[in-house]
């Protein structure tokens, strides 16, 4: 199945890209996505994604891993936010 992964702000810098389509076996989980990303992203990117202050959104809803993935899901990695 296909999953779209998005990286924002400092995590885009760390990943070296803003969006990546990842092909995973059926019944994949967040952990299988992280394993796939380890091979697809530049060195050091995974450490940045795993930092304590990084939040994960599944289909634009903040979701605490671990979770299961489905075809067409959108997973986003969000560093600390600030607006205003």
């Amino acid at each position, binding site marked *: 199945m296909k999953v779209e992964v998005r990286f924002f702000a400092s995590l885009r810098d760390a990943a070296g890209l803003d969006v990546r389509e990842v092909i995973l076996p059926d019944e994949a989980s967040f952990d299988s996505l992280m394993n796939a990303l380890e091979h697809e992203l530049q060195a050091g990117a995974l450490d940045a994604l795993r930092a304590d202050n990084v939040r994960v959104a599944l289909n*634009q809803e903040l979701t605490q891993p671990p979770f299961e993935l489905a075809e067409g899901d959108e997973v*986003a990695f*969000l560093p600390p936010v*600030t*607006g205003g």
Partner: protein
Amino acid sequence: MHREIRVQEQDFSVAAEYGAARERLGACAGAVASFVGLVRDLRSGAADEAVEALCLEHYPGMTERSIEAIVAEAAGRWPLLDVVVIHRVGRLEPAAQIVLVQAASAHRSAAFAACEFIMDYLKTEAVFWKREESRDGARWVEATAEDRHRVSDWNGGG
């Protein structure tokens, strides 16, 4: 209650938003409070370093919903009649307008408080990221300890 949330690159006019709110409100509101945030020319935390630009990034869809949640929380706390939040994204130079929060109520205390509450939550909860550009490079900005403290105060924390 009328609520309007816009995330946009283009600038906004406080006069136009205030005028539109007055048309909507007629004579039912006794108070309209507006807050405008501007880009400062000094880097936060380092007084002697000039900021050349502030680049704001968002997550289309999720960002708007994060602001809607903040406005809904404010509407649950105060009797608001009309709330407008306009937040700009993209590259903004010093003195540019970043954000407008406008709240109308029957009485001023609710309008003032809602503006402050919404701004405090925009600082810590809204899905935006800011990169400060200066002569020496760029860095990502995070909410300050004071920003987080102010939100904690709204929840009765210390």
